[in-house]
């Protein structure tokens, strides 16, 4: 029964999506119920993995390699926990955000399908099943992003859809080549069979390139800022915090599990160099952005860059506690960014709703009249910069130590520059927010909308920073080696 429950974080949001489609009148109610159950099942599964070992099941009772495997290890469980908590926050926020609007009707089923695909990607153990999941993710994400119906949003998301399809095609060709050579699609079986060869190298390039396009790795990030900045706030949060993580997770999974013995230092260096480009370019554009949501979207480009800096470090580090630390720090960075960016976008959405716009230069009064929201932006911002005690502070610390230990000092320059630029763009927002307006009367002005944003931002700083240990134990590692 425990292994059967692996399917719940996928089946529950799917059922929710079907019910909210069939019964649009009570969609918000059904949506919140489905979201709560999905989040609980995800957290329960995380608890199972934490308490014991990795879980896995082969659906259909046919065993491998005929059936499709579903599996949860520490890496899957960490991201599942992120999608559960962030997804729940987004759902609660969306009830208020879409109240009385026709768009809510379309939001719920698509959002639950998106969540199905996210959890499906995190738990999948089969390369072709991952393709179907990625397509479900891409289609529902593009449809959600276009919900505002504005011309910019529709055009940006049409481009996002096409880019996603191109990425999937590249990935699928890689899968086809792997099936040709190894005759199975299961990741665990393949990882035993794959040996260095021209075919394996070609597959890893095709699949990584396709996924890097979906993860918006510089210079393939061009589609992200308009698509994320023009979506409704809960959707922006889901896209930036969760959807790009799915593609990143898959690259990490493929590089550390499937292709572990064929990746080379040179290939990892290329990923790292692209990540460095993303950090510098994304941070610079965020600094120059005129709109709050565009700033957040460019900040996502930069943060994705940090995640890719881990690849050359992981490649160069010999197995042992130091490499475990690096791996855990990479996961911690991804999860922290998930919470922080979701909180940031949700808060930015409230500012936009309150002020009627999100131009940074004119935010003064609007932001200060909503202390809780401004506080959320500040908290999330500190996690984006990597200030202590946020989770990304620890992650960056471990990353810099890893760069020292493997003698790759040049990444330090990138990390420091990126951090300074992040501090500059966050303080640029905050300096506008604290204008000379009179002090408002109460801290929270709209509880249902402001609390989720605040809690998500707070988690990125307090939960993941002060209590980062669980990530290590979830991944089966010893504590932080400082």
């Amino acid at each position, binding site marked *: 029964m425990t292994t059967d429950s692996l399917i719940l974080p996928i089946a529950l949001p799917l*059922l929710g999506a079907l019910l909210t489609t069939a019964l649009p009148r009570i969609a918000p109610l059904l949506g919140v119920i489905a979201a709560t159950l999905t989040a609980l099942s995800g957290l329960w599964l995380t608890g199972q993995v934490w308490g014991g070992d990795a879980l896995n099941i082969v659906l259909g009772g046919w065993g491998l390699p*005929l059936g499709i495997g579903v599996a949860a290890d520490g890496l899957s469980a960490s991201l599942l926990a992120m999608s559960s908590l962030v997804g729940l926050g987004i759902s609660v926020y969306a009830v208020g955000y879409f109240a009385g609007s026709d768009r809510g009707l*379309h939001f719920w089923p698509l959002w639950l399908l998106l969540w199905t695909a996210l959890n499906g990607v995190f738990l999948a153990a089969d390369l072709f*099943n991952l393709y179907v999941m990625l397509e479900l993710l891409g289609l529902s994400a593009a449809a959600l992003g276009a919900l505002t119906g504005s011309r910019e949003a529709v055009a940006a998301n049409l481009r996002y859809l096409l880019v996603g399809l191109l990425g999937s095609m590249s990935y699928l060709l890689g899968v086809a080549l792997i099936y040709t050579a190894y005759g199975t699609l299961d990741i665990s079986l393949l990882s035993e069979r794959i040996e260095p060869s021209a075919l394996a190298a*070609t597959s890893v390039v095709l699949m990584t390139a396709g996924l890097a396009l979906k993860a918006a790795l510089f210079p393939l990030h061009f589609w992200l800022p308009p698509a994320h900045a023009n979506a409704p706030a809960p959707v922006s949060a889901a896209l930036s915090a969760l959807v790009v993580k799915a593609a990143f997770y898959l690259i990490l999974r493929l590089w550390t599990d499937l292709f572990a013995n064929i990746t080379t230092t040179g290939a990892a260096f290329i990923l790292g160099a692209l990540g460095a480009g993303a950090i510098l370019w994304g941070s610079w554009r965020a600094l120059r952005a005129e709109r709050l949501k565009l700033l957040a979207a460019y900040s996502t480009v930069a943060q994705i860059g940090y995640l890719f800096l881990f690849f050359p470090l992981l490649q160069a580090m010999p197995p042992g506690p130091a490499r475990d630390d690096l791996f855990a720090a990479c996961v911690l960075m991804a999860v922290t960014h998930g919470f922080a960016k979701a909180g940031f976008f949700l808060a930015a959405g409230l500012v936009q709703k309150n002020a009627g716009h999100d131009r940074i230069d004119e935010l003064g009064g609007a932001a200060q009249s909503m202390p809780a929201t401004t506080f959320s932006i500040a908290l999330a911002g500190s996690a984006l910069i990597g200030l202590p005690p946020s989770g990304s502070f620890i992650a960056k610390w471990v990353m810099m130590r890893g760069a020292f230990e493997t003698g790759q000092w040049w990444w330090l320059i990138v990390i420091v520059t990126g951090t300074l630029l992040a501090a500059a763009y966050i303080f640029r927002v905050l300096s506008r927010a604290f204008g000379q307006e009179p002090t408002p009367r109460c801290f929270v002005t709209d509880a249902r909308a402001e609390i989720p944003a605040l809690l998500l931002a707070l988690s990125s700083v307090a939960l993941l920073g002060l209590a980062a240990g669980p990530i290590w134990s979830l991944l089966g590692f010893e504590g932080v080696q400082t």
Partner: protein
Amino acid sequence: MNRDLSLLIGILVALLAVLLLGVFHSTLALDPGQRLASLALERLPESGVSNPVTAVLLNYRAYDTLLELAVLLAALLGIWSLGPARPGFQPAGPALAAMVDWVVPLAILTGGYLLWVGGHAPGGAFQAGALLGAAGVILRLAGNAGAGLPSEAWQRWLIVLGAGVFSLIGLLLALTGYGFLSYPPGQAKWLILLIETAATIAIGVTLAAAYVGGRPQMAQPPRSPLAPMADPEAKR
């Protein structure tokens, strides 16, 4: 686009193609043997169907098929979120109308046949659903703005029917101890037929509704200069 740039892209893509061809050729030369074929064919008698492709789609890899129904649903929901459908075409002339009158029932009948035959020969839910969808397309082309589909409330239930029946059966099997989407011995045949029937209806309605291309309208479309044709629905 700049001519030089497109030439450069062309050269790069051609190099990629040559590389891929070389890799593909050398891999085929190694001939890794059976892949999954022998295993899939060997266990075919247990799968409840005798068409191996249907066995893969609805039994060995049923999970993929369930999600594929979800992808189809996501596409239609996305289309509906973009606003109401455009007005339909002009009503068909007498010759086309007469042809539609017998093509549409024939398509539906053939769909039913393909659904049944899928158990032991090429065919199945997707082929049958595609024919149902085609019947809807023909109806819309002949002037029926709603492609012969029922009201929005009914459409909403019909489009979730496939994934709904599929996942409920899967969860019931998990609850009764067989495991998610693991059919009990001997029950596979009719469970697969049940799932396929629901999937066929859902696919047919989804494809037709996607062709209509917008949220169904309860009342007369406000901007439409043409009234939808009165009765092809009665003829279904």
